[in-house]
């Protein structure tokens, strides 16, 4: 297997250590530089304190509105000139082009000797291009500083040479030197074949864009956990002066108001998840009973119609709740016009009684038909001979259900159950957000909704981050625990 996987042309002599080290340094620096494009703290283009601190180099290059959105008067009065901003954007684009060249070189450095050598030519062009971009940014900086001095607004405009500038200068220098060493130490010999790359690296490079997207949107948010350690206010900055260590973690246990909120929210979360788990057998009952109906047409109709609610959003469920349960909804008009009940005008949605139960019923209404499908498929997969044998042995249908159908569905059910135990803190927020109102706020707010309210609604970024971190960590722990239990009992992992 191993031998056949390698192409025949691997006769090429292996790289020496002296060749490999600069190449690896080069690749790592190129990767870091590539990612630094999207990383606001090292934006070399932030040549004034007034440029949006949330703008990365990439954003600075492409989005005029983002970099200028906190300038206001400075821009209107032209204390920073438009031409400087345009030039800044152009230089950022040039800098990015240089980084792109270097990144392409890093990709090619995975190829054979000839490809490596050619690839190392790219940074020998790209790094100077980065240099040009950086020099232009420096010129913009001096120009902005001079202009601000001229109009006497240096203290408002606050021109700076950002740390990112130094960082990118170092990147460019490192990339250039390592590429040069790698280039010089890789001699092309007469018998070298054409440019080529080992298939394993070629496949990896094809996969790389997907990996990077996943990294940016699923892993990079973890970098946001740093807000938990600072007294951060939206629009502000974080630095040594507002570093507070574990203060916010402590406030989960020390601050009376937070503790009160958390206890209430956790109570709601656990009760609603608990109700969900306690009724998690409903889809099985649904599937088993449906299978007992002998008309397949009836089965199909029921299955079709009961699955529809699963595919509408919670907002639409709420719309339906309004049209059935509000003051002028179906229930009230039915009571008034058909049953002739006097004064039927209750808005059932505004009543906080039995909120947990109502939420459970909405969840069941929406989900039970859909959840049953997996069990219906499971029942169809049970060997019919088992039933025949049981019949011959004199089992009635209830015994068949109890001794054949249910045990046949148990493995699937265990997986579902363990997953819902692992997700006990994650109820999602949409359902509770749409059904929330002034009356039921206290009993409907679950953890996810609480995080939304304090984080996005009240801008308490650090506290909501801390709650989010705790929730993520507990969630992962529970998942591993559930997986461990599953392995111990069933000898199969669920993740």
């Amino acid at each position: 297997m191993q031998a056949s996987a390698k192409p025949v042309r691997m006769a090429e002599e292996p790289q020496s250590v002296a060749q490999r080290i600069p190449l690896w340094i080069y690749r790592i620096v190129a990767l870091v530089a590539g990612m630094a494009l999207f990383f606001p703290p090292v934006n070399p283009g932030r040549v004034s304190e007034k440029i949006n601190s949330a703008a990365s180099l990439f954003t600075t290059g492409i989005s005029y509105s983002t970099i200028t959105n906190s300038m206001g008067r400075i821009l209107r009065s032209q204390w920073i000139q438009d031409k400087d901003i345009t030039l800044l954007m152009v230089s950022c684009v040039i800098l990015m082009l240089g980084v792109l060249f270097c990144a392409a070189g890093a990709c090619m450095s995975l190829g054979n000797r000839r490809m490596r050598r050619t690839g190392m030519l790219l940074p020998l062009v790209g790094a100077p291009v980065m240099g040009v971009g950086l020099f232009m940014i420096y010129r913009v900086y001096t120009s902005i500083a001079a202009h601000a001095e001229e109009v006497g607004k240096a203290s408002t405009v606050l021109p700076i040479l950002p740390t990112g500038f130094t960082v990118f200068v170092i990147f460019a220098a490192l990339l250039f030197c390592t590429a040069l060493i790698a280039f010089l130490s890789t001699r092309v010999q007469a018998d070298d074949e054409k440019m080529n790359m080992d298939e394993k690296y070629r496949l990896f490079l094809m996969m790389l864009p997907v990996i990077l997207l996943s990294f940016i949107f699923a892993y990079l948010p973890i970098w946001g956990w740093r807000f938990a350690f600072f007294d951060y206010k939206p629009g502000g900055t974080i630095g040594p002066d507002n570093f507070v260590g574990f203060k916010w973690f402590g406030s989960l246990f020390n601050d009376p108001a937070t503790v009160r909120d958390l206890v209430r929210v956790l109570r709601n979360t656990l009760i609603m998840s608990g109700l969900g788990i306690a009724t998690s057998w409903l889809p099985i009952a649904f599937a088993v009973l449906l299978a007992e109906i002998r008309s397949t047409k009836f089965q199909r109709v029921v299955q079709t119609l009961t699955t529809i609610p699963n595919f509408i959003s919670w907002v639409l469920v709420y719309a339906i709740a309004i049209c059935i349960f509000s003051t002028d909804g179906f229930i009230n008009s039915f009571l008034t016009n058909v049953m002739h009940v006097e004064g039927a005008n209750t808005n059932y949605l505004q009543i906080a009684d039995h909120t947990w139960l109502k939420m459970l019923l909405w969840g069941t209404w929406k989900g039970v038909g859909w959840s049953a499908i997996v069990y219906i498929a499971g029942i169809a997969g049970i060997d019919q001979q088992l039933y025949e044998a049981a019949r011959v042995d004199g089992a009635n249908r209830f015994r068949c259900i109890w001794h054949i159908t249910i045990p046949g569905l148990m493995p699937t059910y265990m997986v579902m159950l363990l997953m819902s135990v692992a997700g006990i803190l994650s109820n999602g927020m949409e359902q509770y957000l749409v059904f929330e109102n002034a009356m039921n706020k206290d009993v409907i707010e679950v953890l996810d909704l609480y995080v939304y309210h304090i984080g996005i609604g009240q801008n308490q970024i650090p506290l909501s981050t801390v709650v989010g971190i705790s929730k993520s960590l507990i969630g992962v722990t529970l998942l591993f625990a559930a997986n461990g239990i599953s392995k111990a009992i069933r000898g199969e992992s669920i993740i």
Partner: protein
Amino acid sequence: MSKKDIAATMHIKRSAGDWIFDIAVIILFSVFTFICIFPFYYLLINTISDNDLVTSGKVNFIPLLKNAAGDGVFGVQINNYLALRNVQDLGSSVLVTVARTIIGTALMVITSAWAGYLVTKQKMWKRSFWYRFLVITMYFNAGLVPWYMNMLMMGLTDNFLAYIIPGMVAPYNIILVKTYIESIPASLEESAIIDGAGTTKVWLKIILPLSVPILATIAIFGAVGNWNSFQDSLLLMNNSPELYTLQHRLYIYLNSSSNLGAMMSQGGTVSEQAAASMLNQRVIQYTVSMVSIIPILLVYPFMQRFFVKGIMLGAVKG
């Protein structure tokens, strides 16, 4: 012998208890099915009946229009749907939602098909590591606020791209595609490679045509997800009402305490009388709801074929 035949032979002798049980089950399912679909029907008849009758709660089971005497008689009208043209901000939400459904779904399907194929390649450098790298994101997330701060950092707030780019890599769908491709006989791919086709060409000419069923499955589920999207619009589009998705817009309509009729712009081709009757907030809410349900109901029959496949493949992890 099919299952039905077996059942027929097995149930030759049915006791009274069996009969009662059967009837009870049928009644149970009939009631539950009724509960599942009646709200949709009720919503529909309220949008196609006379608005005065709707307001006074007369429309309960059949759509009604007024006769000369002012009483309700069976009949339908579609003026409410025509009048939606004048509801402020609705057009842009529909446009944004349609655009993200088409573009977002297409990009997601292409990415899943591509990544799902590549992760089947044993030769890839550190293949199993990268596969786990993608899959693990299903079970772990950094939390709502760090995610939001990340999107802010990326400049993806108040930006249409926020609807389509983060959704491109969908680990669950990648698993589905991978599992499906692994079930395709390897000999097909091998013969193409022997004929000199590269990875991309094999993917285009062999893998894609063969995996149409699974791609259709993830496409249709992805499209429904995009159509129903609400949370990202709520979180990320604070300063850009023109980028609100339809569900977000509906959420605002449902919660607006002011009379929605007042939000209607002036003019338009709808007669003054119709416009006046549109001043009914409830009816607008119902009609907009109906508009956002209809596409789901339209694709629903096509989706059904894919249900079991989608779920069952998901059960086979790895």
